[in-house]
């Protein structure tokens, strides 16, 4: 339903998206997971024909984004990262205007607005000015707006950015329900691990404009071994040689941090003592846990993503973006 091949975007000297390729099947919820500035938004904009790729090509709903952007646009819905509602109009008016300028058949428009508002449970707020909506309601309104055209493909750019956990869970419900009832193909970007894990069928991890890993959340986690042991030591470089000699899959995460991918941490731990022998006294800290996508990210990029909870920084960033635009 979506296919990208060598998609690239350069802004003067900066390569925001660097030859990425992926496929999204019909009815799939596909996640683009990556930290700030990874190139998620730029990718979405190219797929939604709002930005011209510098190189490469992509097809959405069977149409080329470079050759027939008009056709692509007829088959997609998009929720932008930053709010794009008219705050001084009611929710209903926002949907009505959207429907009209996006060419929803006039005879059906009112019925579709009613259904869309019902779907996101905002019927009772239809007549209220949007500036009085909470952040979660605002996002739901934007989702409803993107649904008016009954798109085959839906792009959601960080749909839960800055929302509290309840509102976020609610948004996931709507997204899943949409796929179930309409079979909509959904591409969602996020930097929340938990979101990618719980919501997406498949995930591509994107970092500095490149896709570093791709697969279902389970596959990605399994690739790391089922569990990870972390060793902190000032002599990490000496330790890692020993560990590798013993045939363990060890990676240096930072000058003082080693990650060991093992099938079972509890069984591997005693073996560690044997392998390291005398060196064990240089180990300052041992911890282990079942891998999350966070570890997958760490594994492929050597860097931490970010906390999985929405925080104040998110909000500030969001506001700053709104300003910038």
């Amino acid at each position, binding site marked *: 339903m979506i296919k990208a091949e060598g998609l690239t975007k350069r802004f003067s000297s900066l390569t925001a998206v660097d030859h990425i390729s992926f496929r999204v099947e019909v009815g799939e919820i596909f996640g683009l997971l990556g930290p700030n500035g990874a190139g998620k938004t730029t990718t979405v904009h190219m797929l939604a024909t709002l930005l011209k790729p510098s190189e490469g090509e992509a097809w959405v709903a069977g149409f080329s984004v470079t050759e027939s952007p008009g056709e692509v646009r007829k088959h997609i819905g998009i929720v932008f990262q930053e709010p*794009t509602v*008219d705050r*001084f109009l009611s929710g209903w*008016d926002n949907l009505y205007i959207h429907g009209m300028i*996006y060419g929803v058949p006039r005879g059906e428009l009112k019925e579709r607005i009613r259904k869309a508002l019902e779907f996101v449970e905002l019927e009772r707020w239809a007549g209220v000015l949007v500036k009085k909506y909470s952040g979660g309601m605002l996002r739901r309104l934007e989702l409803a707006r993107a649904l008016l055209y009954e798109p085959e493909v839906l792009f959601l750019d960080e749909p839960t950015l800055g929302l509290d956990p309840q509102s976020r869970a609610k948004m996931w419900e709507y997204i899943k329900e949409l796929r179930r009832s309409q079979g909509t193909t959904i591409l969602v970007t996020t930097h929340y691990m938990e979101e990618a894990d719980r919501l997406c069928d498949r995930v591509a991890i994107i970092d500095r404009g490149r896709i570093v890993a791709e697969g279902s959340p389970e596959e990605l986690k399994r690739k790391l071994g089922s569990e990870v042991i972390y060793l902190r030591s000032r002599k990490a470089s000496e330790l890692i040689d020993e560990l590798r000699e013993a045939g363990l899959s060890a990676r240096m995460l930072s000058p003082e941090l080693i990650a060991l991918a093992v099938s079972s941490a509890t069984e591997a731990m005693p073996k560690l003592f044997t392998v390291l022998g005398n060196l064990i006294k240089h180990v300052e800290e041992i911890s282990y846990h079942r891998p999350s996508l966070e570890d997958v990210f760490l594994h492929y990029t050597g860097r931490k993503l970010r906390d999985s909870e929405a925080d104040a920084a998110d909000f500030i960033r969001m506001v700053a973006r709104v300003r910038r*635009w």
Partner: protein
Amino acid sequence: MGFTSAVAVMWYRQVKKFYMAKPRLLGSLAQPILWMVFFGLGWSSTIRGPMARMLFHGLDYMSFLAPGVYMMSIFIVSFMSGVSVIFDRQFGYLKELLASPAPREAIMLGRVLGDSTVSIAQATVLLMAAKALAPGISLATLPVASLVGFLAALCFTSLGSIIAFKMETFESFNIVNTFITMPMLFLSGAFYPIDTMPAWMRHLAYVSPLTYAVDATRGLLAGYSHLPLAVDAAALLAAAAALLLLSAAAYKRATVG
């Protein structure tokens, strides 16, 4: 993606927004009324008698001023509505509009028509009130004056949005106000006649479409105009056409995201 439905719905948006913001409506009505009352009554009791009638081409000062204030109200409301594109950009709404498959000219035109409708409606209410202070003006020609007003409103909403697309931030707003709005008002002949201005001011005055708009409405409502109505109308038509085209070009150039 019908052109007309996009125009219609943008018209709807501008009018509805205005209707939803009632305090603003009162505010922008109050300002020109205050001008009429204080500026108007202040001067008309200072400059009076046959001398004044000569200065103002046979009119008393209130009758001279009222059409000027009517046009001032149209100018300010429509110019500011045009500039408010910058708010749409700031709040992200411009992205929603520009990302749509609707022709951008249609979006621009609908917006301009909506804003112009609003400013005419407001100015008409104002003129009714002004009639009480300036009994010398005639409302019989109001329909024609409204047409002139509408042409002027098309000019100034377009001008406002052209400028807004050039502005980077809200801060430029004050600069625009000081260096465009104020000089255009003072040069327009709304408050004092143009023919007694120093030559350089007079030349400048005839560059601004507002001058022709004030002259035409004064001719229609108070019975005196400096230029023939046809000349004023032609100047306004030409300006409206040029500014609409430029504004459409600015919408087309604007980038999304």
